């Protein structure tokens, strides 16, 4: 695929049980390969992805992964190195500064 520009924002608010995870992984891989910047925000049951190796792999490939620390803490989900321990403020910025924004919830 030819190179593209821009930033893709993704909200992922479902647990790894949802098909959303597969779609987000595949779309993010495709975007990164094409040169698109990807930042995703995990909240609600989406924070359980901290325990999912697929998200760690996306981060290793260059996606920025931010988690709602409040939701992670209330679910007793442990902090991981591959994610930015953030807040809803990060989502507010992402919604504003991404070129395209997709919600998966």
């Amino acid at each position, binding site marked *: 695929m030819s190179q593209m520009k821009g930033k893709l924002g993704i909200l992922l608010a479902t647990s790894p049980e949802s098909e959303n995870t597969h779609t987000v992984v595949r*779309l993010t891989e*495709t975007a990164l390969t094409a040169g698109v910047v990807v930042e995703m925000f995990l909240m609600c049951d989406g924070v359980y992805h901290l325990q999912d190796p697929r998200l760690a792999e996306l981060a290793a490939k260059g996606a920025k992964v931010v988690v709602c620390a409040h939701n992670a803490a209330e679910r007793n989900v442990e902090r991981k190195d591959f994610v930015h321990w953030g807040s809803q403020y990060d989502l507010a910025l992402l919604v504003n500064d991404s*070129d*395209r924004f997709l919600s998966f919830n």
Partner: protein
Amino acid sequence: MKTLHIIREKDHALAISTARDQAGPASAAGNELAVLLIHDAVLTGEDRLGGLSATVTVTIMVLKDDAAARAVESPYPSIDYDGMLKLVFDSDKVICW
């Protein structure tokens, strides 16, 4: 202006009615509408999507793997993830339902 609706659930009434309303006679000339069916939305019946053709150009597509996984031979053209990414960036606005 081109708006893309990505629909994830079968027979998603609000998503379809919104797209239908946007495609209606009240919409501005020159507007374009695209609908991409993914996940179990690939099972959405043609009858449900029937109203989606009016004064604006409407394109309906399905995500290839998601249709094949469900044994769906869709009447709509299929695209892969490269196509989905391109579609997202080619559209001015995207709603992922």
